[in-house]
């Protein structure tokens, strides 16, 4: 028998052995998977330093002996929990930033109560964010800070920045942030003002339930959930994959309800009239003209983002008045841009490099 035949037989033997081993593990671990409690998330040590209604402000414990002078405030989208920034040790953007030497604060949201159904864009951008900014400055003793906003959190941060030009903002980072709402793809079609009666929805419900919000996301990728289940079944032997899958799944399942008035305003002012893009949006008696923003701006966008398409985020850099501005277009989707292997490899190091230069 030739050497190559012998080698092929050995290879086949090894592969069959691996397949059988995986099949056994799949069955054993599959049972564990079904009966497992919720995936532990958000484990990086932190203190809640401020809370009011739906708002929570976390301060994370430092993980380096020396930190940059300028603290960082992450602003989460109002539709989701902020633990996507801190999924699990080794898969946590917060942990990465802490180890890179940043002093990290995060704005998170709890489900709004029915008493908070009247919250508007103005409450988020002229009250919640400024209150947290003050807390960060008070806590650190520093006069300025950087803000990193994700998705709608980026949009709120942008409105805050445009209406607080003399405030303490030093750098603004927007991660997949919608600006041109007329480029919002399916969301725009489904909320067409001729057919979508937002007033009836808000007046009837008061608070927009999480299942309606989730439905809006999942309908854009209807096969995603089933494909995810198939992938995890195939990878059931792979503990790291399963751990990451369960954390992401939990995040997707814990979508937040939205205050009705906020939803009404988002629909009318942004989706229909595109006022942020046109520079006509008013918040707190001020016009949120993006040209007012003159601090350094970094916009990070994902090539395959189905929720906030590239065309919707792209105008940010064209519209801001900053001289120091940069856009990073990365391979990946809406969520894989900020968490998971893609983010660890691509986005976090770029964010660290940009921010560290501007945080002294």
């Amino acid at each position, binding site marked *: 028998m030739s050497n190559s035949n012998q080698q092929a037989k050995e290879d086949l033997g090894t592969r069959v052995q691996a397949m059988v081993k995986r099949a056994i593990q799949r069955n054993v671990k599959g049972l564990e998977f079904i009966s497992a409690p919720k995936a532990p998330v958000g484990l990086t040590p932190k203190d809640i330093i401020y809370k*009011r209604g739906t708002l929570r402000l976390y301060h994370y414990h430092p993980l380096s002996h020396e*930190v940059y002078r300028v603290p960082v405030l992450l602003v989460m989208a109002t539709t989701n929990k902020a633990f996507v920034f801190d999924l699990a040790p080794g898969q946590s953007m917060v942990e990465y930033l802490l180890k890179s030497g940043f002093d990290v604060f995060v704005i998170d949201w709890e489900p709004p109560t029915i008493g908070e159904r009247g919250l508007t864009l103005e409450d988020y951008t002229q009250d919640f964010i400024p209150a947290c900014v003050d807390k960060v400055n008070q*806590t650190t003793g520093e006069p300025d800070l950087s803000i990193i906003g994700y998705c709608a959190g980026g949009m709120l941060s942008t409105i805050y920045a445009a209406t607080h030009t003399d405030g303490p903002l030093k750098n603004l980072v927007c991660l997949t942030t919608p600006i041109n709402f007329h480029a919002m793809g*399916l969301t725009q079609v489904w909320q067409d003002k001729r057919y*979508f009666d937002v007033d009836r929805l808000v007046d009837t*419900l008061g608070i927009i339930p999480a299942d309606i919000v989730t439905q809006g996301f999942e309908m854009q990728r209807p096969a995603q959930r089933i494909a995810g289940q198939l992938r995890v079944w195939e990878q059931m032997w792979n503990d790291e994959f399963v751990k990451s899958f369960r954390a992401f799944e939990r995040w997707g399942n814990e979508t937040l309800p939205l205050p009705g008035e906020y939803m009404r305003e988002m629909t009318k002012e942004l989706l229909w009239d595109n006022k942020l893009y046109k520079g006509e949006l008013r918040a707190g008696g001020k016009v949120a003209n993006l040209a007012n923003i003159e601090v350094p701006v970094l916009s990070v966008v994902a090539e395959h983002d189905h929720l906030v398409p590239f065309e919707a985020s792209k105008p940010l850099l064209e519209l801001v008045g900053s001289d120091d501005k940069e856009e990073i277009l990365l391979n990946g989707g809406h969520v894989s841009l900020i968490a998971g292997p893609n983010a660890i490899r691509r986005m976090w190091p770029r964010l660290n*490099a940009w921010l560290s230069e501007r945080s002294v």
Partner: protein
Amino acid sequence: MSEKRSKDPGEVFRELVTEWERGFDQLANSLMGTENFSRSMNQMQDVQMAVRGAFREFMTDNLTNANMPTRDDVVQIAQSLKSLEKRMERIETLLQGMTSNSDPEAIPPRGGPPRTKRPPSETGAEANP
């Protein structure tokens, strides 16, 4: 004899799933991205809202007749509590301000590591932790 190795069955499975997902999503998006779909979906939602609205009125009437607080009553109480909470917070902030004014040296920024870190471009250190 070909030396080319055949693919791992797991990899083949993953590729199939990815292909199926992409194809299904594309098809679904093309069907759901139309004006007709939007109109039908929103009509259904309007019907749902009308039913919910009618049910809410029915419940409110029944609760009122039974001399029980309605949802709106409970919301009103919650809002009053919230406004009290806000006032308390304002008073707390004022008190904190008064305390710090009386002793200017008692404004302790949170302890922790020194805020002296320099970017890797200046120190030549490894950029990633």
